[in-house]
């Protein structure tokens, strides 16, 4: 089975990259897809806080760390690598990957490469999409409009956004729905994965005492976002490969 790398990034901070990475890892786990993660928010590592066993903190400018992602794909037991890119590092990360031949290797179909580009409500996010477009040939490019910690207010209007979006060849789009603020805070405080929080389990796997209402909000939010993940080509191909592997094994 061909390995898949999914980059999650944005050039603006605070738009929900790590939240989306967490939701994605959660989705893959619930669908029995083995995934590893790299957290480039060096040295702190927000993703690592929620997935201490699965997410490795790396410095993407460090060659050794680049090798940890790219040179271990074939030997890794996991079929999927999720890379949560540090805030403001999307363009530079893509530039690094371009220079070291990663993007070309993806175009040559040595592995699958996807990019979840999280955009916030600012005009700057539209310019980011333009900036990123030059790298997206050969990868599954998905614009993730993030409503999670905002209201429905976006600085840009739909017509303007549509014009920008139309310029992106083969781009797909998802919307990260709004999650109740208190529910979001509670999960954050708990340091648990979304799935564990819903199951009323703490980060240590012990029985939790989380609110039914807040767990319900997270369950609904995750269900909505799962549905959108399930419609993405990059996810479909991962699932198809998993099914194919499973039938081959049996």
């Amino acid at each position: 089975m061909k390995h898949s790398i999914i980059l999650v990034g944005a050039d603006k901070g605070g738009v929900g990259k790590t939240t989306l990475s967490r939701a994605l890892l959660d989705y893959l786990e619930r669908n029995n897809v083995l995934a590893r993660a790299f957290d480039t928010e060096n040295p702190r590592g927000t993703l690592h806080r929620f997935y201490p066993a699965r997410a490795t903190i790396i410095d993407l400018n460090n060659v050794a760390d680049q090798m940890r992602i790219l040179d271990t794909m074939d030997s890794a037991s996991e079929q999927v690598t999720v890379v949560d890119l540090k805030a403001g590092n999307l363009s530079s990360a893509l530039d690094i990957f371009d220079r070291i031949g990663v993007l070309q290797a993806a175009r040559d179909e040595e592995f699958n490469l996807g990019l979840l580009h999280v955009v916030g409500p600012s005009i700057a996010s539209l310019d980011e999409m333009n900036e990123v477009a030059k790298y997206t040939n050969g990868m599954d490019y998905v614009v993730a409009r993030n409503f999670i910690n905002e209201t429905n207010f976006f600085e840009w209007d739909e017509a303007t956004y549509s014009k920008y979006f139309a310029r992106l060849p083969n781009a797909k789009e998802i919307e990260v729905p709004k999650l109740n603020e208190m529910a979001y805070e509670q999960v954050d405080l708990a340091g648990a994965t979304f799935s564990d929080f819903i199951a009323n389990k703490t980060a240590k796997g012990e029985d939790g005492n989380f609110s039914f209402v807040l767990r319900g909000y997270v369950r609904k939010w995750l269900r909505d976002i799962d549905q959108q993940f399930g419609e993405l080509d990059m996810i479909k191909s991962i699932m198809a490969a998993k099914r194919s592997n499973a039938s081959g094994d049996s």
Partner: protein
Amino acid sequence: MEGSLAQDSQTPEQEQTIASATIVCSDCPRNGKTLFAKLATDILTLRTGRPPTIFDTDEPDGGLIHHFPDAGQIVDLSKTTAQVALFDGMLERIDSHFMIDLSARHFSPFFQIYRDIDFQTGAEECGLEVSIFFIIDRTEASIVAAAELCASLPRTRFIPVRNEAIGDALSVGKSADIFAGMRVDREIILPELSAEAQGMAEHVDFHFDSFIAGKYDHFPFELKAELWGFLESLYEQRDSVETGSTHPL
């Protein structure tokens, strides 16, 4: 005339301890919802020996809570903390009864939350029996709202209430056809009261459980007879399964 009502007043200790949540709601205001909630609260008090915990969603003024000032609280459902207090509160106190007087403006948001958090499953896991009493207003839109709510919560006990004081809810447009197509556990018809009896029933110092217990013997005979008739009419609408249960009506 007073047989079944008097029997209820004498046997609170025999009630099952199963928890219940009664939601009294309507998509429209001012159609007798709070009076019905008061009646249901009084009868539940009569059966269980203590008033249910009340959540009055008519924030900030309150409606039902004025009739039972010590039995609950006004909650502002637009706040997550209040939603937690209400829904989590019901699941955590598994030996209690709850009465929710749902204001018309919170009707849609409340049931959106109810569905979003899958409260019905939580209630089933905790042994909490939820009943929805929907007061149908005299518009086709109200019947449609009732039918949609009923269809969206197939595992929740749903009882439409027709208040004769506001007219025949089924005489408008296609209301009767829509009503006939609804899955309902049963329906309640709330008889119309005279202005005097209505005024008494709505007075904060009047309670149906006290009335059944004979605490208003000084009332004029005609008024007492009318109130007894009103209550008997409601009791006669219960089916045999509900008699003696912790369902309020």
